């Protein structure tokens, strides 16, 4: 499809400059897929939180953006991965206000609320991958409450 070119990408996350590129790419991809303004804003904000975690806690990594479809619905999937220290206690990391550093601890739990689907795969000592998906207009299944 003609939009795949502007949607699919793999971007490095190594500096705060890269965070700007990640946000710009997500903005462009979400606009191409037809997301509304509020949904675009939520998605870019979630991506910014997750990319910053990849950079700050994971020691750098990458974001992969892919276009997904399911039963006629179009969506954007973003996958943030690093080979950093991993997360030992996922429930703790996902609770509002928990931070191991000087943050507000709202990034991970907040990003989860901003998207339709959210999952984390983390192995202590090996790295972390956070995958989020947003569907244009109608999510194919009801959103989960945190």
């Amino acid at each position, binding site marked *: 499809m003609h939009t795949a070119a502007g949607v699919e990408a793999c971007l490095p996350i190594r500096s705060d*400059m890269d965070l*700007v590129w990640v946000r*710009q790419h997500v903005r462009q991809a979400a606009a191409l897929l037809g997301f509304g303004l*509020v949904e675009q*804003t939520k998605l870019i*904000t979630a991506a910014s*939180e997750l990319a*910053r975690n990849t950079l700050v806690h994971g020691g750098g990594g990458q974001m992969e953006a892919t276009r997904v479809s399911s039963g006629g619905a179009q969506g954007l999937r973003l996958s943030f991965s690093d080979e950093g220290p991993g997360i030992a206690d996922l429930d703790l990391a996902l609770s509002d206000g928990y931070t191991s550093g000087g943050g507000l601890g*709202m990034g991970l739990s907040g990003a989860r*609320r901003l998207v339709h689907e959210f999952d984390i795969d983390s192995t202590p000592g090996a790295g972390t991958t956070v995958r989020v998906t947003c569907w244009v207009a109608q999510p194919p299944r009801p959103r989960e409450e945190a």
Partner: protein
Amino acid sequence: MSDASPRPVPGQVPVLRLGDVLLVTLQGDLHDSTAQQLQQDLAETISRTGVRGVLIDISGVEIVDSFLGRVLAEIAAQAKLLAARTVVAGMRPAVAITLVELGLTLPGLSTALSTEAGMRLLTQHSPVPGAGGPRQESP
């Protein structure tokens, strides 16, 4: 998102002085380091000039994440310690909706819908809360 996205501009955010108020206009997509630099610059400028207010226009800002939200809150907190009030003006509706869902309600920030309204807030001759007289920190 309507217009072509501006290129990211590393470096400085201009700080304008209008009488007793510093006017800061944030635009486009800010680098973390640019936001942090602004935070430092503002503290120095407030203390050097003795202004009583800081007006931050974010109508050109498409997203506020927890990092920028925290920088704004810290700017307001440090300005208050330096006897100045901060008003954040012009937040886009989509940004407000997203911040609340993110869990960042930024209770310490004063806001206004426009820079004009923000300027009125700052130039009313009301005392600066908590910065008017000698302060004592409780232990």
